[in-house]
């Protein structure tokens, strides 16, 4: 779905892979015009899966499923920035832009003669948002990183898993999305400052490592207060005056999130052991922390004897936060999201019909329009370069020949 709130905002997007494209997707989703610039051979994110099972290697391999999601509602233009004419055309586009978003390694733009400070001087209305692994300075600014290492250094991994074995890294590329969100918010803040205080654009430096760490406030601040930091404690979230745990049940696993006294009373009722409320081992939060193992031993058999749907329904009746830990197939079929028409079906020109997660925000001021699929490589070269910038169609053909576009 696509809103029009940012209909007056033009974004030049030099990003690749996940964090940067997610930032500009968020902007496109609320109406910004996003011109995605890729090298003529396509950005690296195109060659990452998931793929359609019947994918014929040659025809599909420049369009993975994640690329198709992260780049909806964008215009696609190819430009080789190693060519002088490529850089000139980029500068023409920047002359009309409010935002440049990039996630090159620090210093790359400067190597192209496009250092952010120079761009800001030349285009006073432009802001440059740089998203990088470790930030634009510091000893690790040029260090390579993957998700496994990023999450480990950011503190996400250490407290998860069994005490008897190695810690467990979170799944997927979650941290990349956190960085993308910080980038999109920074873009909005730069526009805000331009309107209300600064009167001009500025450069913003967003580090993925710091984005990841900022979500570890439980750990980084709380441990200083108590001197205690969390260690792996198996299927429980942590040892505390609560019971937050993922438990095996008859047909899978269920998440229990029992925190307050009232929720504990309700839980005792649910498992048919109302007398436990008065049990001296569990009377207060502190008691339940000290005797957490005993409490877990009482709860576990009840979960194991019942199915997810039953457990969730019984918990819901009693206002106990629970989750019938769903597979992604079940997420796609979940009633709540279905009735809210959250997933949107797009007709991707290569992948066909796919259901993609919709815009998280729901604005009440106007109705959103349907999403436009991600661009094919160079799909909008003519529209942007000829119709917008006024390049001669003959030059387009020539640039194509020499590999600039």
């Amino acid at each position, binding site marked *: 779905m696509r809103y029009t709130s940012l209909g007056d905002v033009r974004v030049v997007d030099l990003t690749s892979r996940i964090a940067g494209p997610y930032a500009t997707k968020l902007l496109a989703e609320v109406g910004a015009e996003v011109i995605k610039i890729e090298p003529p051979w396509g950005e690296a994110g195109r060659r990452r899966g998931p793929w359609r099972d019947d994918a014929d290697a040659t025809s599909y391999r420049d369009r993975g499923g*994640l690329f198709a999601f992260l780049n909806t509602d964008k215009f696609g233009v190819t430009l080789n920035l190693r060519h002088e004419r490529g850089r000139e055309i980029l500068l023409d586009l920047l002359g009309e832009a409010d935002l440049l978003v990039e996630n090159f390694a620090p210093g790359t733009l400067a190597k192209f003669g496009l250092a952010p400070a120079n761009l800001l001087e030349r285009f006073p209305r432009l802001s440059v948002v740089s998203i990088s692994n470790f930030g634009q300075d510091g000893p690790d600014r040029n260090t390579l990183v993957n998700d496994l290492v990023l999450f480990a250094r950011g503190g996400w991994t250490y407290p998860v898993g069994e005490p008897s074995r190695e810690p467990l890294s979170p799944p997927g590329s979650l941290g990349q999305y956190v960085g993308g969100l910080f980038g999109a918010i920074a873009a909005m803040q730069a526009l805000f400052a331009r309107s209300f205080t600064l009167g001009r654009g500025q450069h913003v430096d*967003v580090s993925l490592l710091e984005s990841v760490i900022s*979500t570890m406030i*439980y750990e980084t601040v709380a441990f200083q*207060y108590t001197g205690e930091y969390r260690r792996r404690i198996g299927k429980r979230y942590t040892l505390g005056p609560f019971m937050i745990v993922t438990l095996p049940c008859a047909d899978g696993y269920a998440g229990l999130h029992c925190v307050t006294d009232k929720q504990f009373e309700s839980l005792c009722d649910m498992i048919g052991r109302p007398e436990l409320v008065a049990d001296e081992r569990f009377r207060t939060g502190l008691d339940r922390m000290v005797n957490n193992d005993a409490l877990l031993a009482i709860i576990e058999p009840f979960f194991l004897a019942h199915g997810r749907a039953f457990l969730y329904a019984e918990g819901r009746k009693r206002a*106990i936060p629970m989750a019938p830990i769903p597979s992604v197939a079940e997420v796609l079929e979940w009633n709540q999201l279905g009735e809210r028409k959250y997933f949107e079906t797009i007709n991707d020109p290569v992948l066909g019909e796919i259901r993609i997660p919709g815009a998280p925000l729901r604005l009440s001021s106007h109705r959103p329009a349907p999403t436009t699929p991600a661009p094919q490589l160079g799909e909008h070269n003519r529209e942007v370069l000829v119709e917008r910038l006024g390049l001669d169609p003959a030059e387009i053909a020539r640039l194509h020949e020499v590999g600039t576009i």
Partner: protein
Amino acid sequence: MTMNDGGKLRVIDLSMGWAGPLVGSMLAEMGAEVIKVEDTRRYDWWRGSLSMGPPELQPHERSGVFNGVNRGKLDLTLNLAHPRGVAVLKRLVASADVLIENYSPDVMDRFGLAYPALAESNPGLVMISMPSYGAEGPERDARGYGNTVEAMAGVTGLCRYHDDDQPYTLSNALGDPIGGLNGMFAVMVALHERERTGRGQWVELAQVEAATPLMAEALIGYQLSGNLPVPPGNRHPDHAPHGLYRCAGDDNWIAVAADTEEQWRSLLAVLGLERLADDPRFSSAEARKGNEDALDEELSQVFLGLEAEEIARRLTQAGVFAGQVNSAPLVIADAQVQARGFFIPIDREVVGTHLYPGPVARFSGTPLSSDRPAPLLGEHNSQVLRDILGFSEDEIGSLEREGVIGTSPRT
């Protein structure tokens, strides 16, 4: 200079926990005047979630998480079960730019604070509601926290070791900050639209819908292949080695991965394991992936005798993916984090001085600022009522006597 020089934005923050309050604190980083409204009987439950102790120690002022995400706010207590409490809140909202709430659906209606009524006296108001699962739909009334939200988005089901079925909850209730970041983005978008149209609006942000895009790869992969994703744990579907290895000392670990032939050779050179280069079990990327258990066994033995931080640095310099598995104190001590001064010391009443994470985005022209402490319960009652709403000392005294405002929790 702050981003919003002069604090032109006024924000009323009725939210509790993490997701909603994060929106308020990010607006405070911009220099907005953020007034957190708490009930002395039902104060923000995050004040108590990790702190217990006798009342004289003020446990509600000793929560690291509360004090982390409520920095830079003013705190006003109001009994919202009392008509005068609601009346004060309505006056505040009438002068506000932004209202943040994450009550269960319908609670704002019951207070008489539904958006249409508020917009009548303040058409520029941007109001954001952040329910767990949505203001509509069969699960609208279901209770959710960050952990349950991320589970319902499909995250928890994929958080498993490669060789075991048991799912684990993420370490950081990621559903909460993801909800908060999306909420902040939504507020900025609505403010941008207001600049163009002059009109505010109500924005709904269901936290589970904010978390679901993070699962796009798995959700789309399932549709394209018809197969449920196989959780790889610490491993990678295509590359090996890719894992966590125990190092010398007490529970110290290193994350290491070598995707390319070059990284593989560098890894062997740094570890002095050149003999493995000619081992047929590891002679190609496919062979290494196929014999991953044996490979992990070889690497585990070597790492056990090495110091994590130092070997991580040497591997990184050699171009191998490597990093220490940082516990909370090690995150703060991380050399890159230190060099960029990400954590900043803040002195707060009752608890003293600690380090808190600074703003993530670094602006060259108008830096964000998060160096003001979180407020004490009701700390700014007089300031807000007198300076912002123009109440007399007599009126403030009578509100206190009637129990509409207060500075200590009541039961």
